[in-house]
């Protein structure tokens, strides 16, 4: 039995050393030096807002929008928490990028055989019982790896221990149904480039509302169309028959 893992990112502890990105690049064998924004070669990056560093990365939603929209099922939410991507399935429609409420997936635009790239929460390390590379590398404990339930408990404890230090919210606890990456901050999230208007129900529900009507539309529509055809067709047959009878009657009449 595996419990759902998560990352707790406490923005008040982050000093912007970029060790998370360096460790990430090493483990995932991504080329290039320090990058300031997410890219196909940077699964995580630090944004700065007046001295506050914000770590951007895939949020690993509990009900991931990317996994629901992908026509070929290239994304999977694993039981341990990571949302992983199977490049061998991908057809490159980029619906995942269009749909992601956090604008996370990045595309290899310069490649003629491009992949979608994003953080995979070190799922291979997790399978071996190891934490993510970024949380291991973080020198201040700003990124902490653990069980999601316990990290949420701990986040509330931190907020209660120092009232007024944090804004009273764990970003990611409820957003689009909850995510496996949780944030604590002393600055209101909307000032740090977070989308705070996100709904709390998972987005895939929206498209499912439409998709789940398909069997009904097909069966009712099919029967209705067939019915209409039967009626109009029958009407024509009856008309033809009456015509014939009429003609015969007239013929009989003329013979007599």
């Amino acid at each position, binding site marked *: 039995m595996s419990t759902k893992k998560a990352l707790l990112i406490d923005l008040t502890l982050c000093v912007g050393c970029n060790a998370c990105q360096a460790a990430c690049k090493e483990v995932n064998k991504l080329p290039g030096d320090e990058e300031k924004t997410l890219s196909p070669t940077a699964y995580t990056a630090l944004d700065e807002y007046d001295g506050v560093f914000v770590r951007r990365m895939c949020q690993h939603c509990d009900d991931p929008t990317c996994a629901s929209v992908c026509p*070929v*099922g290239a994304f999977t939410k694993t039981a341990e928490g990571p949302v992983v991507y199977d490049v061998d399935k991908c*057809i490159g429609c*980029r619906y995942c990028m269009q749909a992601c409420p956090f604008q996370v997936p990045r595309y290899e635009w310069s490649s003629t055989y491009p992949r979608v790239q994003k953080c995979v929460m070190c799922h291979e390390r997790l399978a071996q019982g190891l934490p993510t590379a970024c949380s291991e590398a973080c020198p201040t404990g700003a990124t902490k790896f653990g069980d999601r339930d316990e990290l949420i408990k701990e986040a509330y404890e931190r907020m209660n221990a120092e009232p007024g230090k944090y804004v009273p919210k764990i970003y990611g606890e409820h957003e689009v149904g909850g995510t496996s990456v949780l944030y604590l901050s002393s600055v209101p999230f909307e000032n740090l480039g977070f989308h705070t208007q996100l709904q709390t129900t998972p987005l895939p529900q929206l498209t499912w509302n439409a998709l789940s009507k398909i069997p009904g539309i097909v069966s009712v529509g099919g029967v209705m169309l067939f019915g209409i055809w039967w009626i109009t067709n029958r009407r024509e047959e009856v008309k033809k028959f009456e015509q014939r009878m009429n003609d015969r009657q007239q013929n009989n009449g003329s013979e007599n």
Partner: protein
Amino acid sequence: MKKVFTTFGFWKIVAVVLLTAGLYSTYVRFFEGLGASTNLSDQFPWGIWIGFDVLCGVGLAAGGFTLAAIVYIFNIKRFEPIIRPTILTAFLGYVLVVVGLMFDLGRPLQIWHAIIMWNPRSVMFEVAWCVMLYNTVLALEFAPVILEKFKLTRTIKIIKRISIPLIILGVLLSTLHQSSLGSLYLIVPEKMYPLWYSAYMPLFFYVSAIAAGCAMIIFESFLSSRAFKRGLEIHLLQDIARVCVVMLGVYATMKFVDLSDRKILPLLLEPRFETYMYWLEAIVGVIVPFILLAQAKVRSNPTGLFVSAIMVVCGFIMNRMNVAITGMEGWSGVGYFPSLTEFSITMMIVTIGFIAFYFIAKYFPVFTHEEHHEKEVAHAAVAWKRDIESVSQMVEVNN
């Protein structure tokens, strides 16, 4: 005569220029990648190829299933003379949607994955299957035209035997597919500007596609009547225009009720780019053509009919582009305007559509009904008169 020749020469030159530019762009797209050929970005991953080639290509093909339902399901046989060119338009539209997708997909050679790798929760999965199945249905619906040319009567008989289930399947697939293009965008409630985002987008897409499909039937009839110097079925097109005007009315009402239900009517007066684009789309594509086509005088006038149809088609294209591009720009934080490469590939695909239609119509019996047309109309009129007479006789007898 000379004038006709020069205009035809002009269009030939346009076609050659567009095809050449398109071929070069095709090279850039496939040998240098999407980054080099498009203005797409991580913030704006879907551009004109999805907005125009796919959304409009499919929508404008809606005449195919609308007319098929009218002729074969509702058994209104007098529309038969225009069914073949309409099915051809729909078929070419759908084939070209697939061509457009091949440009847009990052890994086009993997397009077949949707056949074996299923994700029924994905709208895109539904779209993929509808495109595949409806392309097959359209191919079968159009096949008799090709088979007739080669006198393969036995094969035609087999297809005719399954024609009703085929037509019903086609109507169902189109219904699903037209609406599912709207469902595609249900997943972006925060990203799309509220004037366009609505839980009823699937319905809006469906109804507007029927209106645009009708307009396309009129548009296409006019063009082919000029290109092939044949008569215009104005009496049929008038009735198609009546379907169109009803659909426009239904569409406008639904849109208004939706905006007022969501209490965002004031957004219609907010001075910003999205508002202007919304009004442009509504005035050009819905309000003015509705007023025009609602009048019998306009419907029976070829120019009035043609102009109104073009307005509906333009408004429809604007609507899809607004949903795909204008409505998404604000949230994405970046601007998007298609690159020359994107434009030229789209123009190339449209040009291929026109050329393919021209040659198929020229060498295959697409407009065969036309020759017997006058006779048929006369027959229909006589038959109709006879019906009325027989009914009135029956009434008399009963009395």
